[in-house]
């Protein structure tokens, strides 16, 4: 379980995360939604210890700041949205680094297995020996996700993992995240812009607006026109089909 108490962050006079408190259930897929600049990424980065801020952040009851960096890296991983790796590495070399917290430089057979698995999860086996700078944006994005998967942490934080991805790969990744939660008992928090992916795949949805927490609940509670009006400030019809809710926000 991740517990956030009174998270607060401001840049100069602008408050980006305003006194947010919430807990995230273990073994669930939670999605952060909200308009641009709502503070979703900042909040996630604060949990991932990539951004400093005020407030308490607990991982299974223990302050995240009290973990040794290598120990934390075995429990919680985070991928930010602006991860443009400029180094000339092959996909496999990048994914191998996901095992760094465990094996430092000497990878074991188990490490190699996990790397191979992550590569095949991300549909990258054929690209393993290609350099990152030879790949498309989407392939690079998948390589970064594969690295985080190889890191094999119980808690995974992903900031807009579907960036740059086509529909097929987006669906593939969402299904995979679902599987990681259901079969491998991971706890995953993602920031998504497409609320339909949020609606179809998450256990819980957290909505933010202007740095504040406005909604936190399961899909039924959050995905309805009334709540969406609060979150996005626009009228969004919601349709139901096959037991799932779809937001028709294009019209």
């Amino acid at each position: 379980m991740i517990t956030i108490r009174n998270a607060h962050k401001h840049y100069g006079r602008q408050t980006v995360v305003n006194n947010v408190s919430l807990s995230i259930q273990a073994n669930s897929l939670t999605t952060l939604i909200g308009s641009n600049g709502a503070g979703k990424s900042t909040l996630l980065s604060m949990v991932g210890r990539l951004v400093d801020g005020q407030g308490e952040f607990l991982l299974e009851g223990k302050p995240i700041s009290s973990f040794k960096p290598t120990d934390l890296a075995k429990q919680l991983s985070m991928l930010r949205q602006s991860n443009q790796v400029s180094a000339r590495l092959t996909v496999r070399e990048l994914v191998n680094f996901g095992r760094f917290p465990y094996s430092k430089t000497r990878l074991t057979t188990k490490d190699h297995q996990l790397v191979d698995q992550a590569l095949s999860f991300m549909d990258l086996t054929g690209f393993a020996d290609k350099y990152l700078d030879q790949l498309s944006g989407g392939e690079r994005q998948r390589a970064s996700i594969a690295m985080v998967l190889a890191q094999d942490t119980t808690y995974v934080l992903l900031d807009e993992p579907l960036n740059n991805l086509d529909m097929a790969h987006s669906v593939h990744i969402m299904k995979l995240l679902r599987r990681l939660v259901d079969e491998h008992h991971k706890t995953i928090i993602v920031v998504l812009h497409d609320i339909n992916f949020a609606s179809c795949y998450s256990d819980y949805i957290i909505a933010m607006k202007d740095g504040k927490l406005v909604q936190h609940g399961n899909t039924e509670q959050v995905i309805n026109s009334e709540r969406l009006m609060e979150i996005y400030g626009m009228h969004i019809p919601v349709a139901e089909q096959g037991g799932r809710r779809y937001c028709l926000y294009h019209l």
Partner: protein
Amino acid sequence: MRSLVLPTLILLLSLLSLFIGVIPLTWESLRALDEQTLHILWASRLPRTISLIISGMSLAIAGAIMQLLTSNRFVTPSTGSTTDWAKLGLLVALLIAPQASVVAKTLLTFAFAFIGTLTFLFLLQKIRIKETALVPLVGILYGNVINAFTTYLAYQADLIQSVNSWALGNFALILKGRYEILYLSIPALLIALLYANRFTILSMGRDMAQNLGIRYQATMQTGLIIVAILSSLVLVSVGSIPFVGLVIPNMVSLFRGDNLEKNTIAIALSGGLFLLVCDIISRLLIHPFEIPIGVTASILGCLIFIIFLFTRRIYAR
């Protein structure tokens, strides 16, 4: 097989390097092993060849680390103000304690190189340049400001000649008893190998490093310490030699990528090889005189670099 190419080339060129000099060494004299031959070999030729290889390795690895630490292919000790700070440090050492030992002078040189480069990185963090090519330009600019100050100090103290001689690295003065401090590079190179993976991860940015459990600032500083040690040792014993740190890691990266751990040996050996070649050219072109290796290394390095820029579009990115 391919892994043996570099060591073999180094061995062959080292042998060649041993035979080049003002006093000719022949097979006959070598077979006879008379006292004079032994003396030349032991006191002058061997030290020179060894120091060439170690310097080449040190400069190339220092360059590679610096490029990773700054995530920029063009930032090396000579384009990141490290060498300029080291020169200032060496001058200050000469000014305040002219009688001090080489070790003491090297220590002060190192301190200046380390703290100076830290200030450069601090500057970079403050001004946040997005343009890749601009970062080394700022470094060169900053280095030149330091250099101006060094020149001013040297002028006041009548030490301009010394300072100018450091600017152009030269192996002609390497003799037994005057280069041994360079051996201190070897432990620094080994530590670099140990930290290689961390430096590669650092080059992927602060977020990635922290995600993988690496202490960003501490690792950055370890890297800078290694860079400063290597740069100051070379500066104190042979003077500054540009382009090795820039060209060699980039050349290796072209064929083998940027994974430092995988490449440390290739980069080190290529650096040694490069200086051996430069030195042989230096000694043969106007034999029995010689051109300072700083000049040959600049010309050769510059040529290779221009070829890179034109042939590989990736380097223009």
